[in-house]
């Protein structure tokens, strides 16, 4: 049985097709989930892709948090379902309080798209277990509101508990506090990442194949988890 990885489509999702492609290239079966359908259709993991969920004019992810499918995902995440939020997905996870902190306007006030080096620091999560600790990877970043902020106590706790999953190296593209690019929840099944691993899975269209590791990690994780 190949693993079934759900990819949620909100009306304003943009990278959902790309996330599904990445899941497929990693060897799993992508299952498309619709924002208005409160069903997870038995998927083994979920990706919340990039985009603008409901337009996101107010605040990224603010409205998506109330989507019928999100209520199910929030419950399932508490029970250990692996969830990866990419960009807008990260914003939604923060708005839904599955992850601490918030993503705010880039400090230079511009949208920025570039190929970014990240250092993977936590390899115990469901989405990063195929990386080596300290490994540097090259993955596109593209966002207007990717500046991670949290209060000092939260930041300290994230560091102390080894929950900073990845940091920007060689330049911080959005002003994120402590160069944070990705974090996880205490259980390690929910990960939010600002850069886009799904855009680094094919030599033809991405700057590297480094993104694939996130998707193969969840497969490895699922094999090790009794169903």
């Amino acid at each position, binding site marked *: 049985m190949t693993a079934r990885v759900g990819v949620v489509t909100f009306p304003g999702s943009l990278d959902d097709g790309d996330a599904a492609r990445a899941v497929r290239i990693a060897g799993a079966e992508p299952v498309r989930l619709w924002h208005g359908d409160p069903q997870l259709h038995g998927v083994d993991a979920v990706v919340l892709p990039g985009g603008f969920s*409901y*337009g996101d*004019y*107010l605040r990224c992810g603010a*409205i998506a948090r*109330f*989507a019928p499918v999100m209520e199910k995902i929030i419950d399932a995440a508490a029970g250990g379902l692996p969830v990866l939020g990419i960009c807008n997905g990260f914003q939604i996870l923060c708005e839904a309080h599955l992850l601490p902190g918030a993503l705010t306007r880039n400090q230079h006030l511009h949208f920025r798209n570039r190929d970014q080096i990240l250092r993977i620091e936590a390899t115990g999560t469901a989405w990063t277990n195929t990386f080596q600790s300290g490994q540097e990877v090259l993955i596109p970043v593209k966002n207007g509101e990717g500046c991670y902020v949290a209060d000092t106590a939260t930041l300290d706790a994230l560091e102390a508990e080894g929950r900073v999953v990845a940091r920007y190296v060689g330049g911080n593209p959005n002003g994120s506090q402590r160069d944070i690019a990705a974090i996880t929840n205490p259980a390690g099944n929910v990960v939010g990442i600002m850069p886009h691993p799904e855009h680094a899975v094919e030599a033809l269209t991405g700057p590297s194949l480094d993104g694939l590791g996130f998707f193969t990690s969840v497969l490895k994780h699922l094999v090790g988890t009794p169903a």
Partner: protein
Amino acid sequence: MPRVVVDVMLKPEILDPQGQAVANALPRLGVNDVASVRIGRRIEIDFTGEPDLDRAREIADKLLANPVIEDFTVRLVEADEPADARS
């Protein structure tokens, strides 16, 4: 020391996609008695000395609002509203 508040809103006849998006989301929160939502900006300006309304108006006109699509108002408020005015 009082501070100057500049409120910038889209002109009433201009489409407000932000407000629209929020209004459309409200039923999902169980709110059905809202007729319209408009979203603009609130800018708080603290002067080093006496607050200068004319100055603020000039800043608003040149920098904070685009008069082609937006209107603004300028007013004085007490800077240190008591905490319980915050909801």
